[in-house]
């Protein structure tokens, strides 16, 4: 589990096929942020045949609602939120071309199945390490749903953003495998 893989966005199937659970990954490029409220709006748009506020194909969605930025900072602390709240929406976004998700905590079977089918990978960032994580975020711009405040959709430019692969496209789960390894 010690290998470190450097990735740039957007993600391609070829890159995703190489990612296995436990791999430590440094992401450089663009992340789009969304939590529950924004997911609902995005999926409503897709279901009514409308365009999303950004091109989701090949992109990664980061489940985060940052704290406000102090003057002179690009962003306030910005660690992952619990992913399971996005489970009802994630498969629809995968169908639209989303290739990665960053959050924390386990996903539903429906999400894991959709990941296999659509070749999408699920990463965890370190929950609660928000001040540290913010250092790898270089630029932030609200691109939709400003009325949602912390929950608005943001485009983040990141450098060496540190994550770990929790669910790969082969149906493996780091939470289950990690636990098996250390269980007494």
């Amino acid at each position: 589990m010690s290998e470190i893989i450097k990735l740039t966005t957007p993600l391609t199937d070829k890159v995703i096929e190489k990612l296995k659970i436990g791999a430590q990954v440094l992401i450089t490029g663009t992340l789009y942020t969304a939590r529950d409220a924004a997911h609902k709006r995005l999926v409503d748009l897709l279901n009514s045949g409308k365009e999303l506020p950004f091109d989701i194909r090949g992109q990664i969605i980061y489940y985060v609602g940052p704290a406000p930025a102090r003057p002179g900072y690009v962003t306030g602390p910005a660690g992952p939120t619990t992913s399971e709240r996005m489970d009802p929406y994630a498969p629809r976004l995968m169908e639209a071309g989303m290739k990665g998700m960053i959050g924390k905590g386990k996903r539903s079977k429906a999400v894991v199945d959709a990941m296999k089918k659509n070749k999408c990978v699920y990463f965890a960032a370190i929950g609660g390490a928000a001040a540290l994580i913010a250092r790898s975020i270089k630029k932030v711009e609200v691109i939709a749903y400003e009325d949602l405040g912390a929950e608005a959709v943001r485009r983040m430019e990141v450098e060496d953003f540190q994550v770990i692969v929790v669910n790969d496209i082969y149906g493996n789960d780091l939470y289950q495998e990690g636990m098996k390894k250390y269980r007494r």
Partner: protein
Amino acid sequence: MRNIHVKDITEAVKSLCMDANYNLPEDVLQAFNSGLEIEESPVGRSVLNALKENARIAGNEKIPICQDTGFSVFFMDVGQEVHIEGGSITDAINEGVRQGYKEGYLRKSICDAFTRKNTGDNTPAVINYDIVPGDKIKIICAPKGGGSSNMSRVIMLKPADGIEGIKNFVIQRVLESGSNPCPPVIVGVGIGGSMEKVALLATKALLRPLGTINPDPVLREIEEDLLKKINDLGMGPEGFGGRFYAMAVHIEKFPCHIASLPVAVNISCHASRHKEIVL
């Protein structure tokens, strides 16, 4: 009788909100170091080191440890010889939260339960008052994040379930929580009382400093047994696998009705934030 002006309460609350969110308590940092000694998983150790670095950055730069700066929960021990002057004590606390969250660049996370519209200033706070002897007011500010709070549960067990039933419930709750509450966690357990009392006991259990020993030998033994069983599940820091999922199990107990055995679990994430001041 001693007079305390509401302005002083507002000022104190404002600075407590910021202090609690920027500065991780020393006992938690000590626990991270103890965790590094026992953690076998390399990923687990790298998580613990990242959390230490995160706390260092937050404290130095006066930015929140976690983006979820929590529900503003207060425990107020109000001396019965205190006279509050200048207005309502509850309004004064909420004003302190409003100012602290705005001026401290803390996230506003409170919304209407149905419309989900944000109140915009992190109010209203959840305030628990106790009337105590004396002429002082002790204010404990304990911001509580949503991810770990969502893992909390209350159950009314049958008296026949006994200590084994309590242990099974706690372990099952922790297992189901997995990585969601941002481990390494503190597991707060309330036993006894009424339905609302037991939830409060579990929450208060989280305020006990890490490394302190439960004065009740029976509870101490249950705490130690639960901690071992929880860490033997192998979930580790952030649930990635490892030895150090829980920093501690803390239990508070209270007598209960002859028909009942209430149990509550409230889990704190590793950002176990609480600061206090005495006025």
